[in-house]
Structures are given as C-alpha cells and as structure tokens.
C-alpha cells in the first residue's frame, strides 16, 4: 500500500495509554504514518518538523490532561496554525468539563470527543471517518484511500467530483 504524506499525531503523557492508542490505530499506519508526543511541548516540535518537511497532519488525537498544559488549550493553539485548520481533532479524555469541551468545539473545531475508557473499534471507527473526511476535503487523488478508509463515501465523492468536472 502506498504511504501517504498524511500523518496521525497522538498526544498523551502516560506511556501506557499512548501505547494503547497507537496500537489501536496501527491498522491505519501503512497509509497514515503515526507520530507520538508525550507532552504539549513535544507535540509543537513534532508539528513544526512535519510541516517544514512538507507533510500534512490528517488527525490529531489528544489527551485532555497533559503536564504543564491542557489538551483543549493545545488544540486551540494548534488550530490557529493555518496548515492545521483542516486537520481532524479528537479529544481523548477522562474528565474534560463541559466548559472546556465547549471551548474546544468552538475554538479548535474539535471533531470528536472520546471518553476514556474507549474501545479499539470506537477509536478506529472515529479515525477512519475523520480521515475519510480529511482526504475528501484535502486530496486530489483519493482513489488510493479506498482500501483503508470509508470506501463507499470515497467512491461517492469520486462520482460527484467527476460529474462536477464533466459539466
């Protein structure tokens, strides 16, 4: 399978939890390389590096409580970066309050909220759905993603695109 330039970024300070998140998303990695960060600071560095290498970030999965920062603030901050506007953002949390979640929705365009403990199916389903939306929105050639992502939605989109360009 063709590796894409679209990365998945997982941010979580507890190694055990990070291991679990990465393991759950591993199925997608042949096409969407996974990067990890243990802290908000590391996340910023990783983002900077990826962007300067000309890569894209399709999905950010972020824990809410991080040492020295909170996930919502980080997502809001990252969202201010124009290159990350269309990145899909997921908050993975045991305890974000309503206020924080509302802020994340409004200011970081949070796309999904997953409460801990989660299941692998749940996380994968969300990741597939969000990455599908991302590639449809951002990529010109989406055919290669049919095998990993939501094939129905992608073929539907290909049909629509073709009919638009035919007109």
């Amino acid at each position, binding site marked *: 399978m063709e590796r894409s330039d679209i990365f998945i970024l997982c941010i979580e300070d507890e190694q055990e939890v990070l*291991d679990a998140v990465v393991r759950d998303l*591993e199925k997608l990695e*042949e096409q969407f390389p*996974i990067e990890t*960060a243990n802290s908000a600071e590391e996340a910023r560095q990783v983002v900077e590096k990826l962007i300067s290498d000309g890569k894209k970030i399709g999905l950010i999965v972020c824990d809410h409580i*991080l040492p020295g920062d909170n996930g919502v603030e980080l997502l809001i901050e990252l969202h201010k970066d124009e290159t990350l506007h269309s990145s899909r953002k997921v908050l993975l949390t045991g305890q974000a309050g309503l*206020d924080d979640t509302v802020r994340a929705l409004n200011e970081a365009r949070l796309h999904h909220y997953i409460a801990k403990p989660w299941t692998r199916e749940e996380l994968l389903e969300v990741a597939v759905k969000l990455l599908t939306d991302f590639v449809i929105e951002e990529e010109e050639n989406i055919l290669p993603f049919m095998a990993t992502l939501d094939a129905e939605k992608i073929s539907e989109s290909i049909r629509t695109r073709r009919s638009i360009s035919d007109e």
Partner: protein
Amino acid sequence: MILNFAKNWLQDPSRITSQIAKYLEASKAFDVEVLEFDKDDVFFNEGDFNESVFILLEGTVQLSKKTPRGRNITVDWLRPGAFVGLISFVTGEPVLTTAVAASPCKAIKMKEKDFLELQRSRDEAAQLAQQLIIGNLIDRYHHVVSVHVELESINDTLERERNHLREALKQLEETQHRLISQEKMATLGQLVAGIAHEINNPAAAMLRASDNLLEYLPEIIHKADPDQGHHYDKFFRLGLQRVLRDSDQQREKLKEWEKEYPDLPRSLLRKVTSMSDDALTFIKEQIGDKPNASRRSELESMILFYESGYFLRNLQSSTKRIGEIVSSLKSYSRQDKGKYEKADLRDGLNDTLLLLSNRLKKVDVILNFSDIPPIDIITGEINQVWTNIIINACDAMEDRGELVISCGHDDRYVWVSIKDSGPGIPSSVMSEIFKPNFTTKQQNTSFGLGLGLSISQQILQKHGGKIRVSNPEEGGAEFKIYLPV
C-alpha cells in the same frame, strides 16, 4: 400651700375623697349617688360616650384597652381618690379605655352640672375638688413617666434579645451548613469506601492474573522456541524491561531504518526502533542477510514478543496503580467514625496527594518531610484538612506552579507547612478566610461553599491544634498546621 396641696392628695387620697363625699352628701345642692360595684362590674366600655364621672371611694378599678390586634391590655389601675372617666367626661370624646371593677368598689357618680357646680362653689369644697383633679393629673403623669421608663428598658431588653437571637440564628445557620457539608463528606466517604471496595477485588484479580501471565508466558515462549533459535524469550524480556528512547533519537533511527529497509512497514519499524541500540545491533545481526520476505516475518515475530512483553508490563504497572489508588482511597476515607488513632501525618498527606494527582498534574510537588512522631488523630478528618488546603492552593495557582509541603516537630507540636506559588492572600481578606461562607470561588467549582477553611479550623481545634496562614516573602501563601504531640 397651693403648690403643696396636691401632695396631700398623693399622700392620702382617701382623706380628700371622704371629705368630698361628706360634703357632697351634706350639700343639698348636688344630685349625686354613691354606687356600689361588684368585682367585674363595668363602669363604662371603651368607645362609649360618657356623661358622668366617678370618684372612686373604695376598691380598685382596672383600665384596659383593646390593641389593634384585638388583645386586651391593662393600661392602669385606679385606687380610691381617683377619677374614673375624667378625660372623656371633660373632652366629650369616646372613652379611651374600658373600666372594670377589679374588686368590689364604691364610687360617687357625678353628672356634668354637679361637677361644674362643685368647682364653682366658693368654699372649701372647690379647693378639695381642685386638689382632687390636680392630684389625679399628677398621678397619671407619674404613671406616664414610669411607663416611658419601663418601655425604654423593655425596648432595651428586646433589642438585646433580638441581637442575641440574630447571633444565635447566624450560628445555627453556620452550624447547619457545616453539618450539611460534614454529612456530605461523610456520605462521600462512605461512597468512596464502597467504590474502593468494589474496585479492589477486580484489581486484585487483574494483578494476580498478570502475575500469572508473567510466569506462564516465558514457559509458553520456551515451548515455542526451545533452543532459543528465534530469540523469542530475549524479545519478550526486552519488552518487559522496555526503557523508552528519547523520541527525537527514535525518529532519527526510524528514518535510518526506513531508508535501509524500504520494503518493511512503518508500524513495524517504529516499534523496532523504539528499542535500545544494543537490541537494534542484535536485530541487524539476525536479519541482515536474510531475503526480504523472511526478514519481515522474522521481525514481525520478534516484535510480537517484544509487544507482548511491554503490554504485559503496562498491564502490571497499570493494575499496580489501581491498587495504590484503591488503598489510598480506603485509608483516606477510612470509616473511623470519629475515633482517634495513632497515625503518621505523612501517610495521610501521601494518600491525599495521590488522590489529588489529577489536579496536581501541572504542579511541581516538593516534599520536604522530616521524621515526625505518630500522633493521635482522626485520620479521615485530618485528611479533609489536607484536601481543603491543597485544593485551595491549586485554585490559587490556577493548577500551575509549585507546592512545597514540609513537616517537622518540637516538644509540643507536629507541624505541617503547605506553601503554594500562587498570588498569596490579599491582606484585605486575610482575617476573613477562616470565617464560614468566605469564598473567592465562582459557582462552577465543585465545593465552592466557602466552608473548607472554616471546617479545617474546626477540625484542628477539635484536635487541640491550630492553623496559621501567612504570605511568605518569596511569594505565594503558606498554611501551617500544628497538632499536639
């Protein structure tokens, strides 16, 4: 003499009265009658129009009035020598009070014309009548003055009682709030203890299961690879003892390996390159000259065992953590029902810190614990004190900063100091913070009742201890708790 004459009446009204009575009876000019009243007979009722006046010769008359709320109150008692109904008689207005015989009475009843006649007469009788009238007025005036004085003292007492009641009400409200809060904490404590108990069993089972797996997996691996040709056991153990690489270093390694083995999937290489340099060298030795296809399958099985190792380790460390949290919960919320027990304050502090670790994630907690002797405390209550102070510190620092907790002791006290790096306590509220219902928190905080410090202070007082607060020079706020040895 003229000034004195009223005095005669005041000293002995009956003398003047009987003189008048005698005069009136003797004189043929007057049409007066002497009436006898039984107890409870009515002279006149409040609101009546009164056409005659009585001079009381014997007995006592009670004057009473209906209040706007319909209660009858006694206004005055009249004794022999007094006019009954004088004011209404003179003014022609309705009678102000009801007059009732409080005991059998004898009274002279005079009509208007007789009354005027008596005053007009040129002899001694007129003088007597004047004495009678003035004496009556003076008597009433004395009465008014003493009523005013009495009223004032009653008002005073009332005011004092009202203040007292207000104070008592305030105390009652505070006590009620405290009781509710304590009740809440007690309920919460029971709930927490219950939950801790419920989690304890599955957590223990998990820990045991992972211990067993730790024992069985090497055996299984040994059976799969008896002569260790595939080094499964080695990779399993590498996983178990996984030391995380610096992530930048790992990224470099990953790039290196991806370049070297472009046919291998990234997920596989990412895991491989998370291993130590020694392990990586070993892996290269193993797969270096193998054809692509078998290289991949060999790496995959190495990683399978490596991952089994570290996921088992994760399972162990996570269940151990659950176990620690549960045991902290249990000792934190111990159902000691107010019993004093010897305890080391440091244990309670550690339990509290562990349970608040989520709040403290972005806070540097520095413990300067010296050795302290165990002392008699009610653990649950003292833990509540730590919780209140630490949560306040977190609020003050907005969950970011430094929390220094130290302890020590002298002959009399064991002390604990909890110091934060927040903005300190404004001097304007320094004296208020232990008062009930003092809070700087908004409503969205969970326990923003403003009772935390007040309850803490009460708990410490109950233990014979005390709490002091200050803003140290280096900033922040410091709470120092003293408990007797």
